């Protein structure tokens, strides 16, 4: 239904380069997530795709058509905003139908599509209400419904879950995943939350400082991060980075090992360490350790473990799960 190509897209505000040359290929029906720390340019990139900002240079192609000079309404896109951005003076039904009405669609067609979208999102009961009379979760569903009604080639989501509380966030996340399966539509989704990225995406684009750091499936990013930034950004708690010199490895500058790939023992192991802090989460136990050999590091154990601060323990990293990075921070494979 919709594909997207970006070719060397750049954006500067005055002297500040926000996007420094992005090339990206999104295939029909893919769920692509832009993820990165705040200020990395992910929202700007989304707005450039939507046509709300002009790219300083580069080309954007949606479904094979160059759209750089096409206004947002004619690009065949729909966007869901973080702040919902519902029209406060219109009812839910009119909010959803406005785009089609502007495009001159016949009334019964609008009626049909609004009915279908509100059915998908169980919003039938609220069609006559105004946004002020809805809860946050309902408002965000209306905003998603407004996007569905347009039957766009491309769905754009700009941090749609950030304003929702934790429980609603999980529900709405599931809802978006279900919609993606049902509609088989191409979706581009911006978030700073790596859990959303890992759970929803077919393909994650990790951005930092206006540059793509790595593109890949969630598991690719987790198992084979291309550089130190991606390795540190994906996974929670973050990967432990250890100076390779301390481990006597000569082929790398930095060794990375994820907290879940280290085992702890009270009797013996590779690194002797002292527990500094322990977090008991029920399903996981996270132990923060300090060792003379490798410095501070974190271990994530599954299930309950009764370690205390100041306990002396031995840590052993899984040999086949080590990540090696060179002096420039790139992964050595």
């Amino acid at each position, binding site marked *: 239904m919709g594909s997207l190509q970006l070719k060397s897209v750049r954006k500067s505000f005055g002297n500040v380069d926000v996007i420094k040359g992005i090339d990206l290929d999104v295939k029909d029906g893919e769920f692509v997530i832009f993820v990165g720390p705040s200020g990395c340019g992910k929202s700007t990139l989304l707005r450039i795709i939507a046509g709300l900002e002009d790219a300083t240079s580069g080309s954007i192609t949606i479904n094979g058509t160059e759209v750089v000079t096409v206004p947002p309404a004619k690009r065949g896109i729909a966007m869901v905003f*973080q702040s919902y951005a519902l*029209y406060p003076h219109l009812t839910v039904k009119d909010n959803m139908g406005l785009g089609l009405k502007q495009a001159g669609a016949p009334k019964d067609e609008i009626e049909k599509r609004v009915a279908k979208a509100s059915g998908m999102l169980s919003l039938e009961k609220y069609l006559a209400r105004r946004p002020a009379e809805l809860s946050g979760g309902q408002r965000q569903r209306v905003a998603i419904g407004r996007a569905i009604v347009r039957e766009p080639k491309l769905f754009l989501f700009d941090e749609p879950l950030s304003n929702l509380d934790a429980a609603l966030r999980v529900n709405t996340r599931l809802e978006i995943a279900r919609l993606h399966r049902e509609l088989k539509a191409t979706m581009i989704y911006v978030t700073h939350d790596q859990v959303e990225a890992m759970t929803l995406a077919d393909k994650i684009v990790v951005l930092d400082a206006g540059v793509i750091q790595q593109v890949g499936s969630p598991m690719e990013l987790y198992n084979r991060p291309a550089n130190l930034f991606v390795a540190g950004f994906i996974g929670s708690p973050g990967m432990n980075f250890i100076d390779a010199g301390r481990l006597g490895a000569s082929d790398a500058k930095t060794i990375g090992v994820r907290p879940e790939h280290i085992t702890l023992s009270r009797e013996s192991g590779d690194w002797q360490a002292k527990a500094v802090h322990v977090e008991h989460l029920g399903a996981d136990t996270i132990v923060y350790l300090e060792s003379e050999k490798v410095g501070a590091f974190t271990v994530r154990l599954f299930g309950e473990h009764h370690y205390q601060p100041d306990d002396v323990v031995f840590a052993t990293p899984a040999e086949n799960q080590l990540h090696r990075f060179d002096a420039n921070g790139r992964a050595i494979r």
Partner: protein
Amino acid sequence: MSKARTSLTRTSLVHLALIGYAIISVFPVFLTLINSMKDRNAIFRNPMQLPTPETFDLVGYTTVLGQGDFATYFQNSFIVTVASIALVLLFGAMAAFALSEYRFRGNTLMGLYLAIGIMIPIRLGTVAILQGMVATGLVNTLTALVLVYTAQGIPLAVFILSEFMRTVSDDLKNAGRIDGLSEYAIFFRLVLPLVRPAMATVAVFTMIPIWNDLWFPLILAPSEATKTVTLGSQIFIGQFVTNWNAVLAALSLAILPVLILYFIFSRQLIRGITSGAVK
């Protein structure tokens, strides 16, 4: 805001201050009203006294309504005020939208230039304005007054409205753009309804100086057909004799329409504030 608890002394002090200010503000109006209903001797002998059966006299009102074309004067004032407010709000809001919404070269400079209009009194340019009006043949027309008052009101309108428009969510405007609304539709259908309280504020601030103005009607439109109420009541003020009954009656009558307009706008103002709070 931070504390829900109210202390009695605090509240009463606040109320005392407000009541004091209200008395000071209302007193001249009150004095005008009571004296407009007294006979001439009573006005001078006992200006503070309420009209008693002996001193009660409506001669001022009968003079005003009998003499001159006060209906026409009222109509002129009304036309000029309403037309000026409408133009100030329309152009002020559009300029404010442009300044707050679009990034273009000279944006800040343009904003400052408009703000200067608040600081420099328009009366400094009276001679040039008069020459311009004479050249364009607009002297002794209401159009001349409307044009001048619009120019006079726009700087403040732009200043207040652009601040308010900056608070309208960008996402909302962008959602409109994606839904295919034109920039005009975004302005009229999304932004204006959201800044309605600010529009009411601007309308009130613009309206009162226009209604009360004597200067420009006297200079630009002194003809009988274009006199405003303020100018019209000047016929009772002579160099040697002033008909105080008539002057006070005319002023009392002049308060009414402006009061009505104020009530219309202040209702908007209150509605705007509460709708924001509920949302």
